[in-house]
Each structure stands twice: as C-alpha cells, then as structure tokens.
C-alpha cells in the first residue's frame, strides 16, 4: 500500500477497497475515524489533519462535475488478454479480481458532464484497477473519448491516475501510446482544447504519450509525476534522488505542468481553465 508525501506534507494513500463497504474510514496519517459520507463533503480530505484519502474514478468525477450533469459513455470493452499472459498468476485472474473490486471493465471511466455550467468530455482513470495501467481497453476508451470530443467540439479532460503501461499486455500495451497520441492529434486538428489533470500517480507510458500532450496541465498536490520509477533511476544511475523528486512541485519547477493546486481547489481551477479555453462567451 504505497503512501507518498510531497514537499508540503500532503499525501495520498492508495488502498484497494470496494465502493461502499464500510461506513467509516480511518485516516492513515492521524488515525482519525471519519464517517464516509462526511468525506464526500470534504473532497476526501481528512477533516482533522488535511491528509488526502484516495479517490476512485467515480469519487473523482463526483468531486469535479456539476451535480446531475454526468452521463457515462460506456463502450463495454474488456481486455482480451491478448498475450494469454501468465506470471505467478494468470492475467485473466487479475482482471477478474480488479473488475470485481472496482465494478469497472478496466482502469478508465469515460463520460460527458459540466463543470460550472461548461460542457466537457471526461476520461478519469482508476488506480485500483491494476495500478491504472494502460492496456488495450484504456487505450481504446481514451481514443474513443478524444474522437467524441472532436466530433462534439467540447473540451476533453483527462484525469490521470496511472502507473504506466499494462505489462501483462506486452507490446499491445505499447501500441496504446501511439493509439492515444493519434487520437490526440485528431482532437488538435479539430481545434478543441485538451486539459490534463495529473494526480497520484502520473507515470510511465501514460505520461510518455497522450497525458503529456495536453494544452493545459494541472497537477493536484500530492501527485507523483515522472517517467521512470525512483528505484529504477537509483539502480541505473547510482544517483541519490532529491527529496522533492517527481512531486507536483518538482514538475512545476521544471516546466512540466502549468499549475499545482490542492484537491479542494481542483474543480474551481478546471472551471477557470475551461472559461478561458472554451470560447463560448460569444454565445
């Protein structure tokens, strides 16, 4: 269960849990027991210490989109297990388990909605589903969302929570990088804006493809943003990593993102960006 702090002491905890299992959740930072319904009101921020609780895709959508404006776009795709991959466990089993825990087909949820009255096409990743990794279904769903946004001429917002490529789909997952970038180019040709929101984590093949090609990039405080894992970097280079390495602040300092905002401000930040980008002020 990875826990990560950034320089401002915010942290995100990630746990596999079923959607509505318990009434109470314990904050891993301060030990406070928080009523689950209370957390919804606080954007899943601990009311006592300010720590961030992990967000599922559905929780993220609810925290960003205007009430009662969200309409899912369900393609119903599920992974074919294209390599018939088996490591210590068959990939098929991992898929079944992730589907049972999350109630999702795969690691991304796509839909339409409004933020502050402005329409958008939204793709939100769910880290619980095999680390939010991008395989053939994530690639397909993001491509569909980009094409739909181009067709409807409404801004596309991608909320990233991904460890990278889906290793169990081998070169098939690698192709999803090209696929999502191809679809992103289509959106660009339609002159429709694309906003990326980086959360914990935004890494690997997801970051090295569609996620890095947004017009505007907003990072949530507590995000991890980077191409290679810290352990790989240490092992390859023998370098000691700076303390703030791959945090949202680090990304801002190195010109990788436009803004870093705390979770409670993310919705307003998105609304501000949409206001200036959407260009529907003339009617």
């Amino acid at each position, binding site marked *: 269960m990875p826990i990560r702090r950034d320089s401002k002491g915010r942290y995100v905890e990630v746990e596999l849990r079923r959607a509505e299992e318990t009434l109470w959740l314990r904050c891993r930072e301060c030990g406070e027991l928080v009523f689950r319904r209370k957390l919804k009101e606080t954007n899943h921020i601990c009311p006592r210490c300010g720590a961030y609780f992990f967000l599922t895709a559905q929780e993220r959508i609810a925290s960003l989109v205007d009430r009662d404006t969200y309409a899912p776009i*369900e*393609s*119903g*795709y*599920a992974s*074919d297990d*294209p*390599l018939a*991959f*088996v*490591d*210590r466990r068959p990939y098929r089993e991992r898929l079944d388990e992730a589907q049972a825990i999350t109630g999702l087909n795969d690691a991304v949820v796509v839909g339409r909605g409004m933020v502050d009255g402005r329409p958008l096409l939204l793709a939100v990743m769910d880290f619980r589903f095999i680390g939010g990794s991008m395989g*053939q*279904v994530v*690639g*397909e769903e993001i*491509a569909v969302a980009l094409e739909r946004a181009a067709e409807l001429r409404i801004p596309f917002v991608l909320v990233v929570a991904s460890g990278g*490529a*889906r*290793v*169990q*789909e*081998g*070169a*098939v*997952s*690698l*192709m*999803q*990088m*090209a*696929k999502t*970038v*191809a679809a*992103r180019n289509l959106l660009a040709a339609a002159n429709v804006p694309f906003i990326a929101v980086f959360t914990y984590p935004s890494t*690997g*093949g997801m*970051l*090295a*493809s*569609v*996620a*890095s*090609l947004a017009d505007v990039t907003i990072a949530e405080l507590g995000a991890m943003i*980077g*191409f*290679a*894992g810290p352990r*790989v*970097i240490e092992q*390859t*280079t023998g*370098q000691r*990593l*700076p303390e703030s*390495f*791959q945090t949202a602040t680090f990304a801002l300092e*190195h*010109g*990788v993102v436009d803004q870093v905002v705390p979770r409670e401000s993310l919705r307003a930040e998105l609304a501000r960006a949409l206001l200036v980008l959407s260009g529907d002020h003339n009617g």
Partner: protein
Amino acid sequence: MVDDSAIRALEAKLVELRQMMEAGNVDLTEELAMLESKLLKLRREQYARMSEWDRVKLARHPERPRGLPLVEAMAHAFYELRGDRMGGDDPALRGGPAILGDHRVMLLFHHRGSTPEEQRACRHGMATPEGYRKSLRLMEIADRLKLPVISLVDTPGAYPGVQSEEQNIAGAIAQSISRMLSLNVPTIAVILGEGGSGGAIAVAAADRVLMMENATYSVISPEGAAAILWKDPSATPQAAQALRLTAPQLLELELIDAIVPEAIGGAHTDPKRTAEDLRATLCQQLTTLCERPLDELRHLRYKRYRNAGSARTPTDPS
C-alpha cells in the same frame, strides 16, 4: 544462449584446415566441404531450438550489426546532423539525411557504441530528452524537404535519470510519437535489436514496422518484468517467453508488418549481408510507399494506430 561449444570447435577446425591448405601442403577441399555442411547443420539445429530468452541475447549480442557502423555499411552517403538546438546533443540517438539505393531519406537510429568509453557516453543506447528533441528536429527537416523517415530502433529504453526527468523525458517521447504520426512523408521503422518500451515507440510509430528476425520489441525488459511480476530475477527467461517479444510472435499479433531474415546463427555472423539485405528491403518498401498518395498514406497510418492492439469485442453490446 544454447551451448555453442560444438559450433565454436568446428569453426576453429575450419580455420586451421584453411590455413594448412593455404600453406600449400595438402588438398583438403573435401574435408572442408564436409565440415562446412556439418557446421551449417549444427547452426540450423541450434537456431531452431532457440528460446525467446536466447533471442533476447541475440538481439543484444555485442557484435550485432547496429548503429553508425551499420548505417555506414548500408547507405551510399550519410550526413550526420547533431544537436537538439536547445542545449545538447545525445550520442545515443542520432541521424541525418542519407542515400539508400535510389532514395534520399532521413535516417534516425540508436547508437550503442563499440568501445567501453563510447558505450558509456551513449549509455548503451538509452536516449535522453536531448535525443528525442533532436529526432523531433530531424523529423521537421524531413517533412520540409520531403524526405521519407527511416528509423533503426535498438534501445533498452529511454534513459532513466534525474536529469531526464528534469528535462521532461516523458514529454519529449510523447512529442516524438505525435510528430512521427503527423509527418507528411512516408515512414518506416525497423526494430533492429532491442525495441525497448517508450524509448522505442518514440521513433517507431511508422507506416511500416519491420523487425529483424532476432530482434525483440516489448513494453518492458524480461528482467524488469521478472522483478515486478515474479519478484524473482531467475524468472527472466520465463518472462521473456510470456511477453511475446519475438518477431514471429509480434507478426502473429499483427503489430508488425514483416520480418527481415537474418543469417543462420544471427545477423552478427554476416554483417555485410545484413546491411545489404536491409538496404534492399528498405528500398523495396520505400518504392511501394512513395507510390501511395499522401492523403491515403496518412489515412492508413491513422487507422493502423487507431486500431492497433484493440480489444476485439465489447463484452456488453449495450
């Protein structure tokens, strides 16, 4: 790799016999012919028994034809362009305009280096943001001057370092993929040795993707997969098998278009032929691609990557 001591012994024997013949003492033509056919048979047998992990080792073979020496053997002329014009030059990812047969092209290629010093400087073919920004620059030139782009991919992956992250390696790779997909010229990628993950696809999103017979192409190295999924480095050969990273397997998955055959025993056993065969294959592909109208080429390219590795059927048709 498969035990090749028998092959090495035969090779040594052949050299010895040839020397004896040259010295003019005896006529050993028959013996030589016999040994040569035996050697060929052994090589074929060994080649046929190769596991996926053996292929990985062949793809990484220190004497494998690759990088600058291969380009120089393959091209009639090559003019290297250096630098990303933003502060650096990466010796691990190189390129420039070249002449291949009757075609003027823009070449991009990974370079691993042959001496230990050169290998260190090239980080064994792991390119940095500077490398991918140089490739972006060269693609711009190719687009302007209407030069088809040919990339020779041979990298363990993009370089994982603090500086790479500080200079946004992920963004550099993403931009390289994006530009390659939008080029107004035909594009061909050859997976030459190792096609390692993002560092490979950055310059491999082409109209045609060819693979050398013993090249590998994967989202992660077998070592990496063994560490992450098996949590056991000794599972590396197993991981190589599970990843389906060989050319025949990727052809079957329809992720590549064609396989370029290698000499029995691997490309390194006959570097000259490797260069000639690769040039001939590329020229043939270029002739076909250049006949296509550009609109059609770009449409087919979009379709190819839009449909690449798609899940076949929705589970729930609603």
